[in-house]
Every structure is written in structure tokens, then in C-alpha cells.
């Protein structure tokens, strides 16, 4: 299974019995009810009064409350200034146990708009002196469920290919590292005549291309412009040829440097046969222990 990005960022709350019990008791005072909450209530065997209007979830007003910081500071002013560290540390170890359930959780959840609805309802009920319960007393016994990652099964073919590529890369790194140490590997493959000829060939071709295009540039400046524009003085023709050749040489130089740099890199990493190729048995045996 492959963990992928969180899609649903909503906070969920698993309702406790206490919360549902209270809602069940107060059903005749509820004028309206969000659809999600109504579903949860019905599913858990609470009936809903007929006078209750079911509203859609997006009808609930849902905006961030304003926090009265002054009031908060005033109310907590006489609290001893010891942070509740002890409590937090106690809570943490038990988290380790909860790592196991990796399946997506199922069941009924309260969402943010349900909580907003509950808050406004409870405020209403408190004002009418029907009950004296606060939202925090109800939700403290609920479980907060954080947004979860989705799990997708990974394509086995892709997985195998990634694994193979990773192995190959690690092998290459290992060989590069141990090239100086391992006497049997030391002269492979740089010291064979064929390898050296090949790399010399490549470089010669690159240099020949460079010389050829510079010569062509010069020729163009020397003869081509003369043919197009008409007879020009000899000195001017040479100057023209040299200028054109220089421009081409500059551009070509950049590419040549880049190409030669790439050759260096290729030379650095010794080329190896893959473990399954039926060649160079000595090397293959040497590779085996490092595959995993």
C-alpha cells in the first residue's frame, strides 16, 4: 500500500454516547437538524420529533468564531503560571499503541458544520433555561479524528521496476566506491583497448565536428559573402571570415565543453552488466552479496 496525499481535510469527531443521549432527550426543542446529524441519530436508534426540520449541511452558518482574548486573559489570570506539561507528556506514550489501525475508519462522524449547529443550538437552549450544558462538556468525551492519508495499492510492475532501478543505482555507487580497493575490479573496464579506442573515437569526433564547423564558417565569410555582395577587397574578406568563424567557434565551444563534461561523468561510473545478463561470471558472483 502506498500512502498518498490527504484529500479530505475536514476534521472529524466521533460522537460519544453522552452527546447523542442529550440530543435524544432534547429532541422536542430542536427546531431543525443538519442532515448528517439526523442520519447519525436515526442510525443509533434515537427518534427525531416530527416537528424537526432537516436542513442541508451547507445551510449551517459556519464561520470562525471571534476569540475574546481579553476575557481569556482575565479569566485565566489567577491561574498559577505552570504550563500543563506533565499532562501532555502523560498523554503521548499511549499514542504509540494507536499506530496500528491503518484501514480507513468507518462509522459516523460529526463535521465542523454539525459542531457549529450544536453550538448555536446549545446557546439557544441555555438562553431559554432548558438545559445548562456547554458544548465543550459534550465534545470532551468524543474522539478527534485527524484528516487521514489515502492509501492506494501500488502498481506491482512499477514497484518492481523502481526496485530494480534502485538496486542498479546502489550497485553502481558501490562499485565506484570499491573500485580502488578491489584488485580484480581495478582494471575493468577502463584498461581494455577496445574501451579506450571507443572513448577516444567519441572525443575525436566531437573535436572534428568543431573544426569542421569553424572551417565552414570561415569559408562562408571568405567566399560566400563575396559572391553575394560582389567583389570585396581581400583584407576585408579575411576579416569577415575570421569574424564568422569566431562566432561559430564560441557557440561550438560551449557545446563541446558540455559534451566533454558529460563524458567525464560517464567514465566515472563504471559500466556494469546487470546481474541477470549471462556474462562475466566473476563479476556476477561479486555482485550478488550487495544486491540487497
Amino acid at each position, binding site marked *: 500500500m502506498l*500512502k498518498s496525499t490527504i484529500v479530505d481535510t475536514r476534521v472529524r469527531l466521533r460522537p*460519544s454516547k453522552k452527546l447523542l443521549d442529550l440530543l435524544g432527550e432534547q429532541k422536542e426543542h430542536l427546531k431543525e437538524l443538519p442532515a448528517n446529524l439526523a442520519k447519525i441519530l436515526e442510525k443509533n436508534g434515537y427518534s427525531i420529533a416530527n416537528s424537526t426540520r432537516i436542513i442541508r449541511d451547507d445551510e449551517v452558518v459556519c464561520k470562525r468564531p471571534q476569540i475574546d482574548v481579553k476575557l481569556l486573559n482575565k479569566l485565566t489570570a489567577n491561574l498559577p503560571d505552570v504550563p500543563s506539561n506533565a499532562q501532555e507528556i502523560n498523554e503521548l506514550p499511549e499514542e504509540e499503541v494507536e499506530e496500528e489501525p491503518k484501514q480507513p475508519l468507518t462509522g459516523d462522524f460529526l463535521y465542523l458544520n454539525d459542531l457549529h449547529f450544536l453550538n448555536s443550538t446549545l446557546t439557544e437552549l441555555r438562553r431559554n433555561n432548558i438545559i445548562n450544558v456547554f458544548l465543550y462538556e459534550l*465534545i*470532551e*468525551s*468524543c474522539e478527534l479524528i485527524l484528516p487521514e*492519508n489515502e492509501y492506494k495499492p501500488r502498481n506491482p510492475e512499477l514497484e518492481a521496476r523502481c526496485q530494480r532501478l534502485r538496486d542498479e543505482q546502489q550497485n553502481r555507487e558501490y562499485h565506484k566506491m570499491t573500485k580502488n580497493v578491489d584488485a580484480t575490479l581495478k582494471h575493468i573496464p577502463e584498461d581494455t583497448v577496445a574501451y579506450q579506442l571507443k572513448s577516444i573515437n567519441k572525443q575525436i569526433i566531437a573535436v572534428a565536428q568543431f573544426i569542421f564547423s569553424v572551417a565552414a564558417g570561415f569559408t562562408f565569410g571568405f567566399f560566400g559573402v563575396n559572391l553575394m555582395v560582389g567583389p570585396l577587397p581581400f583584407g576585408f574578406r579575411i576579416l569577415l571570415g575570421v569574424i564568422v568563424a569566431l562566432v561559430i567557434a564560441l557557440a561550438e565551444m560551449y557545446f563541446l565543453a558540455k559534451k566533454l563534461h558529460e563524458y567525464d561523468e560517464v567514465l566515472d561510473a563504471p559500466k556494469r552488466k546487470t546481474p541477470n545478463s549471462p556474462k562475466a561470471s566473476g563479476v556476477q558472483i561479486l555482485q550478488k552479496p550487495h544486491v540487497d
Partner: protein
Amino acid sequence: MALHSAIKGKLISVIGDEDTCVGFLLGGVGEINKNRHPNFMVVDKNTAVSEIEDCFKRFLKRDDIDIILINQTYAELIRHVIDAHTSPVPAVLEIPSKDHPYDASKDSILRRARGMFNPEDLVR
């Protein structure tokens, strides 16, 4: 010094894998100060956990750092140090890396939030 840093603003430091570091340095957060201390650390597979921990603590001590970014995978390795750090400055942000998506259930502050609730007889 305090006056100086107040004018210049504070730094963002990075502890992460090669790509994360390269990326954020390209974004321009990197700095090497007069004492030749960089504000970033590249973690590779040979880096020991104790090195990450030391580096993290060193960043916590520096007063010119305001945000510490750390890959969530490496944050997991030194979770106890991160949990112990509760003061708001510097803020420790756990960021996802390219092969590990963000996991909300591992984030220190969200775990703290979840710790506020003590579930009892839940409805399944």
C-alpha cells in the same frame, strides 16, 4: 546583535533531504553567517540520528532563526526532542518530503490537539 537581527529579519532554517534543501536554498533561505555556520543541513542515508538531533538543538539555540523546517520522516526520528520543544519561537514546521506525503496524525501539534480529548463509550 539583537538590534541588528531585528532590522534584517530572522531566518528560516532547513533540515531535510537533498532535494528539499536544494529547493529551499534555490528559494533563497540559505545563509552562512560570519562564524561559518550554515542554517541548513542535508540529511542523507548515512547521517546518524544523533547528528540530526544535535543540528536541531543547535538551531533551537540560535536566536536569529524563527522557523525550522524539517522533513516529517526525519522529525519522526527525533520526535522526543520536537515534542519537548513547546515555546512558540522558533516554530518547528514538519514538511512533507517528495516520497513521504504529509501525515496529519504524526504532526506534533495536531497530536497535542488530539490529546485534549479523552474518548469514552463511543458510538461505532
